[in-house]
């Protein structure tokens, strides 16, 4: 999940920072308002805690272990804004001490892990279990489900960011300059890994730690820091705008990179144009279906403005479809449960 430097183009990295700056600013403002002088000590401990639990080896069936991000549990105990500050700090230390995650890619790493995970978790947890008793089992169950969906949403964002690279940044010969996997490979690969490995681990951690607090010290999850920060409704609205803004910003920043596209000379394209059909001809038969989508990243389209437009629409559509699937599923589940609850109330 930690994207190292060199995987994303500098212009993409700039978009990540531009998107994160307002989120950080709002987060600090909100948390400071409610915590005042407690802001620094509490965020310090939250960040240190987040850093240390990322190093825990969580046992998984089969005798091996895996690491959790801890974004879900931090959202449950601190609320999403404070959690996003803590995880951002922990990620900065990881990047600077371990080289785990890059310095340029830090913006997007924060977006994926410090924003998407806690906010998605919090949205689901708060909506489904926010009004229940502190010791209700709904709390840990929805916390776990929330973090599972949260980390998968983060993986989707991660895959999208990586998958856009070969479409947008390559040499005239079609050689990708950064992460070489196109979106149709990057997104499923990320989602698969997170749906079956990192997702369950994140869910287990959130569920178990929430249960631990329910049994030993319910005041930790009762409200404390999380609820003190800001009313839920407000938080979600602004958050969604920030996310939508970031999605919109991505192609804008990428369309004017001043990089690969401007440099492609006509000769290069002509040269490329001559060999491509030969290479394709050899593969045209059985592998046709597999290669259909590859027409886009291939070299002969690289420098054409109309095709850049098509490419943009293509990846845009893929990103929107992906976000819509996750968002839609979340909404569907929440509606189903809400309906069931209403039904139950009506009967009693």
């Amino acid at each position, binding site marked *: 999940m930690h994207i*190292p430097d*060199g995987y994303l183009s*500098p212009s993409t990295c700039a978009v990540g920072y531009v998107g994160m700056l307002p989120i950080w600013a709002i987060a600090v403002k909100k948390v400071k308002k409610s915590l005042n002088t407690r802001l620094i000590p509490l965020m*310090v401990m939250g960040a*240190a805690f987040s850093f240390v639990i990322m190093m825990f080896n969580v046992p998984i069936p089969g005798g091996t272990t895996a690491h959790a991000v801890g974004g879900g549990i931090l959202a449950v105990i601190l609320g999403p804004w404070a959690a996003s500050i803590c995880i951002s*700090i922990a990620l900065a230390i990881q990047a600077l*001490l371990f080289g785990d995650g890059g310095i340029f890619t830090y913006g997007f790493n924060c977006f994926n892990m410090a924003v998407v995970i806690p906010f998605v978790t919090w949205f689901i947890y708060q909506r489904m279990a926010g009004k229940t008793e502190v010791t209700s089992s709904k709390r840990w169950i929805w916390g776990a489900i929330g973090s599972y969906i949260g980390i998968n949403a983060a993986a989707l964002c991660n895959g999208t960011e990586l998958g856009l690279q070969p479409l947008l940044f390559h040499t005239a010969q079609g050689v990708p300059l950064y992460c070489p996997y196109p979106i149709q490979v990057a997104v499923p690969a990320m989602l698969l890994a997170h749906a079956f490995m990192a997702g369950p681990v994140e869910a287990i951690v959130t569920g*178990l730690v929430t249960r631990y607090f329910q049994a030993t010290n319910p005041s930790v999850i009762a409200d404390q820091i999380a609820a003190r920060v800001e009313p839920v409704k407000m938080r979600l609205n602004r958050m969604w705008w920030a996310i939508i803004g970031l999605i919109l910003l991505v192609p804008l920043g990428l369309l004017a990179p001043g990089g690969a596209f401007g440099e492609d000379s006509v000769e290069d394209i002509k040269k490329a144009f001559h060999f491509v059909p030969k*290479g394709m001809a050899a*593969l045209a038969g059985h592998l046709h279906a597999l290669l259909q989508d590859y027409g886009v990243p291939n070299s002969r389209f690289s420098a054409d403005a109309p095709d850049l437009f098509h490419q943009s629409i293509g990846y845009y559509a893929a990103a929107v479809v992906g976000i819509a699937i996750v968002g839609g599923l979340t909404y569907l589940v929440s509606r189903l449960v809400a309906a069931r609850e209403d039904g139950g109330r009506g009967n009693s």
Partner: protein
Amino acid sequence: MVDFQIPEWLLETQGPLPPLTNSKKARRSFAQKSVDTFSGFLLDDFYAERIAARKGLMQGLHPGVKVATSLVLIFAASCLHSWASLLLLNLYVLLLAYMSAVPPGLFLKRVWVFIPIFTAVIVFPTLFNIVRPGEPLVVLLHYGGHHQLTITRQGTQAAVLFVLRVAACVSVAVLLTLTTRWAYLMRGFGMIGVPTLFLKILEMTYRYIYVLLNGAQDMFEARRSRTVARTSTREQQRFVGNTMGSLWMIALSLSEEVHAAMLSRGYTGTPHTLSNSRIGGLDWLWAVFIVLISIILIGGDRFVW
């Protein structure tokens, strides 16, 4: 009279126990792994502190200039389009490491183990034409009439470019952090405009990671020394969950104590830092030099080679 007879099972002699480390079944437990991860962190950090204390090129630079020039180099590495210039940059950073008294073995290990090797592994399939079509470089296999499995020119170029780029970026970052103490690193970032509040939290977090890490390590050690039987995954997971929970309780009470300590020392909500280091002439010279090197690399990359 009671017959003191030694039971038969006690008289049985037992052969030597099978060595634990060699058997595949005796995998390291989750507790052991966690303890190893923690001590690995402490060890890495300890070595980094020692290297940062040495006398060398990078250690002598002003932290602000060092951070800024490192970012310039990472930017240059991100902009380069040819493998030759990326290789050159990699070698240059290696030279810088050597001049900064960083042991080359340790430096190469820190840089290459994991991220670039991991990158090479994930990029491997793109070498082949079935994943990414392109001009054939080496034909590996003919199948089904006119079909071929080839290593493509584009695939190879992309893979080499990608791995070298990632390695260059990681090298610069590793060199920066190995040769700079945490407090100076924070000061350096402060000078390039990173907000004080963020840096203050970062600086303090670094301190308290040690405290929490010690707490966690104790809990895992205690658990490990009391575990004699094989435990179920479920029970292990519950232990990890409980450990995290109690760690948070420690963190929470610590934050209250730290808060009280800060207030009693006159903290009003705005962090202040001392900044007394000045940028010297040599630092400026270094900054100009690095910018020139980056311009030459990027320029050469675009127009010469």
